[in-house]
């Protein structure tokens, strides 16, 4: 009935510290090239043609490291380049301190700053080298790609028309509270996230081929970047239409958030399956099948803890009718 496949990518880690160090490289390298004399005076070393040339060379090295860190998916090698550069800087500053420094205090301060940068470069370089993995205490978003399919005994045009009306999505997508069309292919989505946190975003239709395919994606500013598409393919032998759905989204909280959602029965792979079953029920049967044990209809998290199969008392029934009451 419903086929599903799912792929999860760890994705490139954000490497916040590495990026910060890259910015530091630019902030240091640009004045070193453009105004080496001022930098010399600032750090209290002798300012002459030789030291200005050394300062420009150091600046060029910093900028190269910065470009390297930002342009690489894995900036580890460039971090190690920074570590080497820091070592060289420390050696130069050490020489300046031993020699004739006009302002030994300033040179000492500069040495301290470079030592700090050295430490940061070393820590980050080690961290990224160790399996190129981000630290476990820094949740990273993970991009999830879900596919599911079902066959519905209706023609393509009817199913396309149903799906094209995004405002209907909450009738079968249980995690959606509301979708509002905001005109010209755009819509505003309000979803119930794990632990009752609501997530809102705007989306736009990116592809619309009547009777065949609809694709959409969230607009910039969405907390959960997501995109989706649905394809309608005629099923063989008068069985209606195959509905193929694909969703891609970044789960907030990364793998930790995904695990948490899984424990709460709200994992996206389950949701999409439940959603397709309800979609099929609404279109074919005209209503969502509800039982005493599962009064909300198909809902994976209810199946973890079904109600006894006897009629609900009136107050609980009202809660279910109002869309709440999942306890």
């Amino acid at each position, binding site marked *: 009935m419903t086929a599903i496949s799912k792929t999860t990518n760890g994705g490139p880690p954000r490497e916040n510290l590495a990026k910060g160090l890259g910015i530091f490289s630019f902030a240091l390298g640009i004045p070193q090239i453009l105004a080496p004399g001022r930098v010399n005076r600032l750090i209290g070393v002798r300012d002459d043609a030789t030291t200005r040339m050394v300062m420009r060379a150091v600046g060029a090295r910093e900028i190269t490291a910065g470009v390297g860190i930002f342009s690489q998916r894995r900036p580890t090698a460039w971090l190690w380049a920074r570590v080497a550069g820091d070592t060289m800087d420390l050696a130069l500053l050490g020489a300046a301190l031993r020699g004739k420094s006009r302002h030994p205090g300033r040179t000492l301060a500069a040495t301290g700053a470079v030592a700090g940068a050295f430490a940061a470069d070393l820590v980050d370089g080690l961290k990224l080298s160790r399996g190129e993995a981000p630290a476990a205490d820094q949740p990273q978003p993970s991009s999830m790609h879900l596919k599911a399919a079902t066959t519905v005994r209706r023609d393509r045009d009817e199913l396309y028309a149903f799906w094209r009306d995004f405002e209907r999505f909450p009738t079968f997508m249980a995690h959606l509270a509301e979708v509002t069309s905001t005109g010209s292919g755009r819509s505003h989505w309000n979803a119930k996230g794990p632990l009752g946190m609501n997530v809102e975003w705007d989306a736009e239709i990116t592809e619309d081929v009547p009777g065949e395919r609809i694709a959409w994606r969230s607009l910039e500013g969405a907390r959960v970047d997501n995109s989706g598409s649905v394809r309608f393919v005629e099923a063989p032998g008068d069985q209606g239409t195959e509905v193929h759905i694909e969703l891609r989204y970044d789960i907030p909280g990364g793998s930790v958030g995904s695990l948490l959602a899984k424990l709460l029965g709200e994992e996206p792979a389950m949701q999409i399956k439940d959603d397709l079953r309800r979609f099929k029920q609404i279109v074919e049967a*005209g209503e969502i099948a509800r039982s005493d*044990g599962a009064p909300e209809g198909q809902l994976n998290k209810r199946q973890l803890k079904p109600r006894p199969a006897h009629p609900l008392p009136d107050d609980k029934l009202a809660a279910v009718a109002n869309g709440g009451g999942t306890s």
Partner: protein
Amino acid sequence: MRATVWSGRNKVQVENVPDPKILNERDAIVKISSTAICGSDLHLYDGYIPAMRKGDILGHEFMGEIVETGRGVSNLKVGDRVVVPFPIACGHCNACARGLFSVCENSNPNASMAEKMFGDATSGIFGYSHLTGGYAGGQAEYARVPFADVGPIKVDSGLEDEQVLFLSDVFPTGWMGAEMCNIQPGDVIAVWGCGPVGQFAIASAYLLGAERVIAIDRFEYRLKMAREKAGAETINYEQQPVREALREMTGGRGPDHCIDSVGMEAHHHNPGMYAYDRVKQATRMESERGYALREAILNCRSGGTVSIAGVYGGFMDKFPIGAVMNRSLTIKTGQCHVQRYLRPLLERIENGDIDPSFIVTHRMSLDEAPNGYETFKHKQDECVKVVLKP
């Protein structure tokens, strides 16, 4: 209302629960006039069907009077007398369109639970665990009937409840068991189990043109019913070896087709063999005691059909697939697609071809349901079928 609820292994009780309400437009509420305990209810009672919860209302064989309908039910009105089929089916999916109502694609709200167990979902069933949807059953005063516009059959004629009640399950189940054998003139059919489904399988095999039907059981009173009411020749497997008896009775050919109307809690005449599977089943190393099915396969004539009407829930050990493959046997099975048979079988009853009330041995009030379960389970007092009157 009063309802029979499951409260653990070997424990049912009649309790006060809230009255059912219309939840969907295609629902109806039925005030139950007669309801029965099914052999498959004993699998729940014995604790062999997974996903039961304390407080589940049992019962999937019931009939009564429509007291309320949802807006989407236009073919029934308040006051109509109906028999309700045990599978819940939407009537509009590809399975229903092909007449496969018991595998309806839309009626099981716990479809993904069933999918994990069986590979794909089955339809919803009244009072038959959360795997089949968690629907409250019909051993109660009232029941909510989903998709009431395609399920229940109206019975206007002056037939008694007990003549039509078994259209809900056991008569069509036995009928489908015989139909799956594709009986041809001259065929000899063997039926394992002389409970209600077995009795109807025997009777149906004759109605479908069988030359002879041989019934196998160990309870003399059930064999007597099979002989006298359904017209079978009988073998008591505790008194004679089944294989030799079948060969003798069929000129060495073996039965052309075999029907298993026993299911997962079969019994074996050899105490050692019985203890072996009993222990494995009790310790959940297998979920079925498959003696009847194994014996049916091994005794079926080459090229014949083994039709499984009895209920199985999971995994069986020592399934003789070699016999099936090498002797060109066909296995056919399925929970009965009752909706498919309601009209033609009601006509058979109206014509007088069959009077299904012959299986009833016990009539009780709903409040006596716990006693009914015990009597039926232990086959006390020559029990074949218990009908409860709410």
